[in-house]
């Protein structure tokens, strides 16, 4: 059940009506209702994975209480339990995401060495959204252990935090300290929240159906048959894939934020105009922020402290581990490892040149000047697009084919009617770019958020009409569902 489907809208209407009528203002009832809705939503994707979600919720609920109970009297035991929580979380991830890949790779190695005749197939079905809810759970136990939050004793609230349907499949990854307190209060209808939620949802829908699902046909056509394409088409496909990826994932996040807001709950922002990043380090502060801040808080900071005696080399090492983990978080594939290594090289370069760059900027008063900022933004976008080509490749052989094909030279760009199909997508991408540009420069021009009601109403109506008219309503699932 995806946000851009008719069935989801019916589902959501069925959820929100009793939520604000029968259960209005009653926190427990509302949480229980949300929990049931979330399990239904998750089970709709694959009901066989419901037991895993229930067991994980139950185990971490118990662990949280135990960690808190022993934190003062037996800190070692609390620490052990916290470590157990991390191990269980990583264990779940490892079993469902990485074990099959590692066994296959190991078997392939043995096969090559002649130790076995044929590769055994290990088929483990990966539950959708596993990377998201396990990270929530790991973060929960660590936060209790560090004393940042209290263990949640309200099982309904805790279950809702873990399974909350707008975020369970693709994030944003909520923090318990921010989300759980919101569940303590009963929620009554707030029209400002409702209107803001609707605006965010419609904007997300626009990103998904008018941009991502429209332009996806081009990268799919080129990367799907890369041996038939030249460098020009591959470059265009890489650029369009970067746009598609952003529109797809940011679209999902916007819709998740919108749905949550309509339910009276605020969740984390996930993107802040990454296309305007001036270097790769800034890009990662603007892209998938709920993951990068999670990794920064729970992995990078402890590592940076552990490596502080090593000076700048310690920082580089912590950065590399951090970004490689982000790459591997996406799944078990050599390409994700290379994606992480590629970005770690870029981040180290940014960190190593930071001092000199800042001095240069100061000396020549370049900060904020368009002729300095624009090429940097373009260069960052190009570097990120190259990284996404690595990210998108199905495997090393696929990546090798793309690289070797790029070496064959430029030529006429492949169109074959695809540009006609993608025209509405490109037009929508221009609208997105102008909106982001306006927001980045903080220009006081607003449409959906105008101070004048008539502009807001008109913008909303035009937006809805445009989405119906130009959206690709038979597109695929969200890219991040696979992670």
């Amino acid at each position: 059940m995806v946000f851009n489907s008719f069935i989801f809208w019916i589902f959501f209407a069925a959820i929100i009506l009793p939520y604000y009528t029968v259960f209005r203002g009653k926190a427990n009832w509302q949480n229980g209702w949300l929990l049931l809705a979330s399990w239904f939503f998750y089970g709709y994707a694959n009901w066989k994975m419901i037991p895993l979600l229930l067991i994980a919720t139950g185990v971490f609920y118990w662990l949280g209480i135990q960690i808190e109970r022993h934190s003062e009297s037996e800190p070692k035991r609390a620490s052990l339990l916290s470590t157990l929580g991390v191990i269980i979380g990583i264990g779940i991830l490892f079993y469902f995401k990485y074990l099959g890949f590692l066994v296959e790779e190991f078997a392939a190695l043995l096969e090559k060495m002649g130790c076995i005749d044929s590769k055994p197939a290990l088929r483990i079905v990966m539950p959708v959204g596993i990377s998201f809810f396990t990270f929530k759970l790991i973060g929960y136990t660590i936060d209790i252990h560090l004393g940042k939050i209290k263990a949640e004793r309200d099982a309904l609230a805790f279950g809702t935090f873990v399974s909350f349907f707008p975020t369970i499949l693709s994030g944003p990854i909520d923090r318990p300290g921010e989300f759980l307190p919101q569940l303590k209060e009963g929620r009554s209808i707030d029209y400002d929240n409702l209107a803001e939620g609707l605006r965010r949802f419609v904007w997300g829908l626009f990103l998904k159906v008018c941009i991502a699902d429209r332009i996806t046909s081009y990268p799919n056509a080129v990367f799907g048959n890369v041996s038939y394409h030249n460098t020009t088409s591959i470059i265009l496909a890489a650029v369009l894939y970067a746009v598609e990826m952003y529109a797809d994932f940011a679209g999902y996040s916007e819709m998740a934020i919108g749905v949550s807001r309509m339910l009276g709950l605020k969740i984390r922002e996930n993107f802040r105009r990454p296309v305007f990043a001036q270097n790769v380090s800034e890009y990662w502060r603007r892209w998938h922020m709920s993951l990068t801040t999670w990794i920064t808080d729970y992995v990078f900071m402890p590592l940076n402290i552990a490596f502080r005696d090593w000076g700048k080399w310690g920082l580089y090492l912590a950065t590399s581990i951090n970004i490689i983990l982000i790459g591997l978080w996406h799944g078990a594939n050599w390409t994700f490892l290379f994606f992480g290594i590629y970005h770690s090289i870029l981040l180290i370069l940014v960190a190593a040149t930071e001092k000199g760059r800042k001095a240069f900027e100061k000396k020549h008063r370049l900060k904020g000047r368009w002729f300095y900022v624009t090429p940097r933004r373009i260069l960052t976008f190009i570097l990120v697009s190259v990284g996404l080509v690595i990210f998108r490749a199905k495997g090393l052989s696929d990546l090798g084919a793309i690289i070797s094909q790029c070496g064959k030279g430029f030529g006429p760009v492949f169109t074959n009617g695809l540009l006609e199909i993608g025209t509405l997508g490109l037009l929508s991408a221009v609208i997105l770019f102008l909106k982001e540009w306006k927001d980045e420069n903080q220009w006081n021009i607003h449409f959906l958020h105008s101070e004048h009601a008539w502009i807001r109403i008109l913008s909303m109506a035009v937006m809805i009409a445009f989405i119906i008219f130009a959206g690709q309503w038979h597109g695929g699932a969200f890219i991040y569902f696979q992670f």
Partner: protein
Amino acid sequence: MKGLRFLIRCLIVVAIVVILDQVCHFAMDTIRKKALLAKPDNYEMTSYYGVEMATEDLLVLGPSTATHHYIPSVLQDSLHMSARNVGKDGAFLYCQICQLSLILERYVPKLVIWDLSDDCLSHNLDWGDFLEIRDFWPYPLNDFSKAILKEIGPAEQAALHSWLYRYNSKLPEYLFAFVSGRNSFRGYVPLPADAQYAAGIGTAKAAENLHPLKVELFEKVLSYARDKGCQVVLVTSPRLADDDVQQSEQYRKLCEITERLGIPYFNYHKDPRFFGNLSLFRDADHLNENGAALFTHSVIQDIRREI
């Protein structure tokens, strides 16, 4: 008070969308008609041409095998009837049924050559077929399109109440028709004979199960054409790939229907003049321009002999 204000604003948004919906219908209908008048031979507009403008005695209907295999000028010279190819890439059985029914509602051609695959009645539903059928959503729905729509699902049925949705994705197609150089020869698009792709050559097993709605609508549209006085000839184009479709249930059903309704059916699937002859094919399913010329002449001979 705040709730009432919110509700009123929502209603105003809906009202503006409804107005835009009607404006879209008027504007898009006008653009399509103008594009058809300006570029009737545009490759993207063939299906609209069939429904809105065609007056020819002979029409060729079908998917890409129709578009690339039948040369209207040759048909016209040999059969002494004005001829036009209204086939469209990716438009399979449901599209063809929809298109033929809409054509017959406006005028009755003397002869329709309907190119179809001999496994067209199979249960395999091609989502591409549902996408191509969107060409016909701007037209008034008839019994055939309503039945297909029911199969697609209630969401699509509900969405078709909106003209904005009916014209979804169509604007670039209409606009590009004005400027695009992708013209056809009265609907025929030759495929060059300079290269061949052997991809797809091999054996493919056919799906065995029949699709009841396809069978029902296929029979119904053939009867409808017969009742209107339109002679329909069914043809299966040659293919390079070998398969066992002709042993399948759907093929037996196809033969049974054509026999029962007295409709000529020429199957070139494994015709020795084409089968395995790489020089006549562009790919596994499509003849190149040399193959198309030979094939069109073969079809003409069969039509002359049978009708």
